[in-house]
């Protein structure tokens, strides 16, 4: 036996609980190439699926000839919408209350839409057979611009919705109109603008981008015709939701459906939805009675699985002459593609876009979002953000800059003037969100001091005064607030299931433990951080706590991991389950020590008799007792399950500052400095937080500086390979500086708020703020993303700043 660790402090360090920068438990397998991803799964008798996709963006299917493909050796089946019709599976419901074609039924609505599937002995035969399926199309006029789509004579994209004037979110007033969603108080906002001393307005486009996780989407479906049960290994951020949907679609009882998310190579919202490929693989497995694997390639991933953003936004601010904001109005035209397949809580077709009043105390505000069908792939997922929060933060941060420019105020000063003050929390925004906690001013001061903001402004003034300066210097500043942790069931559900999350903890007789969760890690490091929460709550070393997720047959029901909800919701569930165990353990310890429960103190890993340090029982001893000889009247065992329905969202915030130097000759931009201060409340693993922030900043950099999905007039997506679509590597990625303040959430059991999405949400407007700042002395108020060298070079020439 090891010598017992003596001091409480030393014992606490040994637990590696909350606050410890514990190394990631996942990395041992990943860095050795021993991860187990969907494409690593091989099953006896497994067949392979590939998909015939539409080369055109809009057209009728005249004829599909599958004879040549079926005649190829090794081909088992070719299925089209007509084959799925008898099963009523040629269309499926989306998370947004619309329907989407599983396989194109009579017409195709976007390029790369799924038209037919081929099942073959191996991936190569399947790919060859895809080319042998002959599909004849009659081309239809294509509409790609959502404004054009709403014109009276615009082509009808969704023939299946003909005559349907009522959508899932209210009236439809045009054949390509999906919904109009309003938040806030329009008349109050209008009144503020009528009385305003100053108003500004700005149009901006938040381009369509793709989350592009390193691992593409796929699944292995295995239906057992004897037992009648279905097991599916799938790249899903929400395996329990998939199980419910699969059961509803297939009619197989949920108890006979097992969904497993194994290791997931990044999700970023791309793996929330249910894609036709999954449904087809499952159907094929049921039809053929053999396991079927489908894994999409990169081009398929970028072209057809869920995109993000594509918001055309108009913002307006009303203010006093000295810069106090009095009103906000926002109008958005949202391009949803051919099917409304946004992944949002049911009641919120524009997600949490109404966080658009930001960190500012704005008394009157109104936002209106209009969803529109176009001939593009469906999606609109929360790409590393909590449902359209990125778009909202971008808009308000840009607008505050525009107002500052109009008034000749400094962007730090105008923000400080309008902040929700520390003493105003909990603060209810004009849109009805109740912000839990915040201290924006302290955080802003910390950043401005750390970067010597005044010095930077002086340097910029000197550069502007020099006509021969080879660079334009820009300083971007963003002071954002996010809403994450969806969410309270009274407000948030997905397909009617409340957005709680769950945890089950079992303490084994010898004092180690296993926790099973309703969430699923995709790189966040849950196996590391969740164990740290339990370690601190129950005094068990995190090293002996196993965390299991992703298998619906073992894990308690949960809504999954997206929208920064793991720590705010599942993290709270862990704390609550642990506290149930703790309460029982206290009873057992009291029995063992022959004292009253109230006479016990908890210290790190043990219950002590008050006033006598020599009398104690560790959690490990209590666990043994719980299985060996529990007190009379108490059940044996030491375990608990908790379903946590959060009382509110959490509101992490951050202050980001960026300095850019733009080469006046080439338009190349150097990110000289990026300083990110985040406040995510209580910090569970600072090293993992830093990693999350680095990753989010890098993805934000990608979106702001290079990512785009350009379409030509015919609807061909011209950027669906990694030769075109910008994924920054070590070479392009700038150096990141991170910092933090800690303002715990008062309603969360641990005070934690969630962090992984803040750096993405916050950094993107920071880059734009810096780019525009570099041009602001030339009267430029906004530049649309991406800020790549070509576009920046054009802006330099347009504004007479090119060398």
């Amino acid at each position, binding site marked *: 036996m090891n010598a017992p660790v003596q001091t409480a402090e030393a014992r606490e360090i040994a637990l590696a609980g909350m606050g410890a920068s514990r190394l990631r438990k996942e990395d041992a397998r990943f860095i050795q190439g021993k991860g187990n991803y969907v494409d690593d799964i091989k099953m006896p008798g497994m067949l392979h699926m590939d998909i015939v996709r539409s*080369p*055109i963006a809009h057209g009728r299917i005249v004829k599909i000839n599958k004879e040549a493909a079926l005649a190829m050796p090794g081909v088992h089946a070719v299925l089209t919408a007509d084959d799925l019709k008898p099963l009523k599976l040629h269309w499926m419901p989306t998370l947004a209350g619309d329907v989407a074609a599983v396989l194109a039924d009579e017409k195709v609505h976007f390029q790369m839409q799924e038209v037919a599937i081929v099942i073959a002995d191996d991936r190569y035969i399947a790919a060859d057979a895809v*080319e042998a399926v*002959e599909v*004849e*199309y009659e081309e239809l006029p294509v509409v790609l611009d959502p404004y054009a789509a709403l014109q009276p004579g615009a082509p009808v994209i969704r023939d299946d919705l003909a005559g349907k004037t009522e959508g899932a979110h209210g009236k439809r007033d045009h054949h390509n109109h999906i919904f109009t969603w309003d938040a806030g108080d329009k008349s109050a906002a209008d009144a503020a603008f009528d009385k305003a001393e100053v108003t500004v307005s700005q149009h901006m486009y938040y381009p369509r981008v793709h989350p592009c996780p390193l691992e593409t989407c796929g699944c292995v479906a295995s239906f057992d015709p004897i037992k009648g049960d279905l097991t599916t290994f799938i790249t899903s951020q929400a395996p329990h939701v998939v199980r419910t949907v699969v059961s509803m679609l297939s009619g197989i009882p949920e108890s006979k459906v097992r969904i497993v998310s194994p290791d997931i190579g990044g999700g970023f919202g791309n793996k929330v939805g249910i894609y036709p490929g999954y449904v087809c693989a499952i159907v094929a497995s049921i039809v053929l009675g053999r396991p079927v694997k489908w894994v999409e390639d990169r081009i398929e991933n970028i072209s057809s699985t869920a995109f993000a953003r594509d918001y055309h936004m108009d913002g307006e601010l009303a203010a006093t002459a000295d810069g106090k904001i009095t009103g906000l109005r926002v109008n958005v035209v949202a391009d949803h593609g051919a099917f409304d397949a946004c992944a949002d809580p049911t009641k919120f077709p524009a997600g949490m876009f109404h966080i658009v009043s930001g960190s500012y105390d704005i008394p009157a505000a109104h936002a209106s979002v209009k969803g529109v069908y176009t001939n593009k792939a469906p999606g609109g997922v929360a790409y590393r953000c909590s449902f359209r929060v990125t778009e909202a933060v971008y808009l308000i941060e840009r607008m505050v800059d525009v107002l500052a420019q109009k008034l000749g105020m400094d962007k730090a000063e105008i923000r400080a003037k309008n902040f929700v003050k520390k003493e105003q929390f909990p603060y209810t925004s004009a849109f009805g969100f109740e912000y839990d906690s915040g201290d924006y001013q302290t955080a802003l001061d910390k950043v401005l001091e750390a970067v010597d903001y005044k010095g930077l402004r002086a340097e910029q003034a000197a550069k502007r005064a020099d006509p021969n300066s080879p660079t334009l210097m820009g300083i971007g500043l963003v002071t954002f607030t996010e809403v994450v942790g969806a969410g309270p069931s009274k407000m948030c559900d997905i397909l009617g299931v409340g957005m709680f999350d769950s945890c089950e903890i079992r303490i084994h007789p010898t004092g180690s433990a296993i926790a099973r969760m309703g969430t699923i890690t995709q790189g966040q490091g849950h196996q590391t951080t969740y164990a740290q929460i339990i370690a601190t709550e129950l005094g068990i070393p995190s090293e002996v706590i196993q965390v299991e997720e992703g298998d619906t047959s073992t894990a308690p029901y949960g809504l999954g991991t997206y929208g920064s909800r793991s720590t705010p919701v599942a993290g709270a569930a862990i704390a609550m389950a642990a506290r149930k165990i703790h309460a029982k353990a206290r009873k057992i310890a009291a029995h063992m020590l022959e004292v009253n429960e109230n006479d016990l103190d908890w210290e790190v890993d043990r219950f002590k008799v008050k006033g006598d340090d020599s009398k104690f029982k560790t959690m490990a001893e209590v666990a043994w007792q719980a299985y060996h000889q529990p007190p009379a009247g108490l059940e044996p065992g030491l375990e608990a399950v908790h379903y946590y329905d959060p009382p509110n969202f959490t509101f992490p915030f951050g202050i980001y500052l960026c300095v850019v130097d733009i080469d006046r000759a080439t338009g190349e931009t150097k990110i000289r400095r990026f300083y990110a201060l985040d406040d995510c409340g209580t910090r569970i693993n600072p090293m993992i937080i830093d990693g999350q922030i680095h990753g989010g900043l890098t993805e934000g950099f990608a979106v702001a500086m290079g990512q785009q999905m350009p379409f030509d007039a*015919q609807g*061909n997506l*011209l950027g*669906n390979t990694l030769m075109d679509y910008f994924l920054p590597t070590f070479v392009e990625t700038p150096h990141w500086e991170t910092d933090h303040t800690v303002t715990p959430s008062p309603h969360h059991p641990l005070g934690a708020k969630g962090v992984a999405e803040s750096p993405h949400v916050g950094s993107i407007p920071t880059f734009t703020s810096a780019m525009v700042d570099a041009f602001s002395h030339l009267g430029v108020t906004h530049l649309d993303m991406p800020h790549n060298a070509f576009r920046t070079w054009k802006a330099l020439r347009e504004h007479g700043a090119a060398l």
Partner: protein
Amino acid sequence: MEVKLDKQYPLDVDAARAWALLTDLKATASCMPGAEITEQLSDTSYKGGVKVKVGPAVAQFGGTVDVIEAVASERKMVLRGKGADKGGSSASMDLTAIIMPDPANPAHCVLNGQAAVIVNGKFAQFGGRMMVQVSDMLLAQFVENFRQTALTLPAAEGSPVAACADATAGESAAAATATAAPVVAREINGLAIFWALLKSWFSGLVGKKA
């Protein structure tokens, strides 16, 4: 992806012979590298294919060509071609070709071509950036083949020719020009296109035209 081309090619062939070749769609088509007419469906409608080779990859577009308009008095021909490839690409082209006599030299003419080419699917996605340059190259090859074939026609105005390149060894052409059997590219070769593009780019850099 749509590419619009508007080109004038001066030819050392008289207008009558050029028009005679143009009205023989089968012969004209085979002047396009890699293209051939396989079947005549009606007076104005043909079935055919184009084979494009880019490195190891071969794409075979199959489709139809329709004569929309043929005005002998203006020596004007309007064609519409449509096709698809099994690998997930489709293409269509509206082409207006007019043959004008060269006012300075009655033995020469100018071939005016206006084309709107729409390509969808993988070809547009992968080849989008090269479309204009590749189309230029293809047309240049086509015009050269067209010129050579027209030169093999009898000078007298009249009978349409049977075929283009393969026919050069055959009877009708052999009768007119026994000696010069023109070398005609039979396939669009990606490497050749690349090489030609590279050459013209380099010569552009050093300031002289290729």
